[in-house]
């Protein structure tokens, strides 16, 4: 089971999904929230397909996924796993992403960033889900436990 302590960061944190090509060149794309299937240890990240091309090419050739998620509190985790599939997002997932994106925009505006660029960054709904099987989780919150592997399963 994916640990409950990571679920808040997975579903409401800022995410960056990383990949590597067969010749060890890396690429990443931002995510707009995610859904979790704790029982099957899978995560589906919500992305904009027009920005995710290099990452998807890498996933299809090597399959290896790194997924960083962090909350504004700095609580953060690194997930490692195996790419499974891409799929359309469900209505529930799109609704959750909209909530996440609205909250993210409010957060940025609260930090003094003008509303227009915040809306540009988080205004577009994701149009693709990338599902991967979680194999390892590392705590990445800055501090003495950073880099520590979280036990699960």
């Amino acid at each position: 089971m994916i640990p409950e302590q990571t679920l808040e960061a997975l579903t409401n944190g800022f995410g960056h999904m990383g990949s590597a090509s067969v010749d060890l060149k890396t690429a990443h794309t931002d995510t707009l929230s995610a859904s979790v299937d704790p029982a099957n240890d899978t995560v589906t990240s919500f992305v904009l397909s027009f920005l995710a091309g290099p990452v998807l090419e890498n996933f299809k050739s090597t399959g290896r996924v790194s997924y960083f998620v962090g909350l504004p509190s700095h609580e953060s985790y690194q997930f490692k796993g195996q790419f499974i599939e891409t799929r359309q997002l469900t209505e529930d997932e799109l609704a959750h992403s909209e909530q996440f994106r609205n909250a993210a925009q409010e957060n940025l505006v609260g930090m003094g960033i003008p509303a227009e660029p915040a809306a540009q960054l988080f205004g577009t709904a994701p149009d693709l889900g990338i599902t991967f099987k979680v194999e390892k989780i590392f705590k990445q919150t800055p501090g003495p436990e950073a880099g520590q592997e979280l036990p699960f399963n």
Partner: protein
Amino acid sequence: MITDEHQPCLQGMFPSWLTTCSAAGEPNTTVISQIWYVDEEHVALSFQFFNKTKKNIAENPYAFATIVNPGTLEMYNLELEFDHSETDSELFDDMDMKLEAIASMSGMSGIFNLKAADVYKVKSLKELGS
């Protein structure tokens, strides 16, 4: 390659993110507080801890970074290749002084010592979505 329009992204006001990978092909993505401007074709990362990023770069020199303009939120992707480390230079002293000032303000003076300024060649720089 790096021009005036990119300079606000390299001031440490908005975090950057970085993906490296091991020789075995395992990617690692992390958020870093600052990527430092060196010259039009080079940037630097601080080496303070022997973490996964440092381990990966020792095995494989390629990295991919995203920097953000804090005023406009325009984002730029950088393909990087590790070039060299500096421990005795103006760049190192500048980075050390700024990191010590940040540490001092957060009550952690002397804890986060800079071990090296790791300099990367910028192979490409593209605005996100372009």
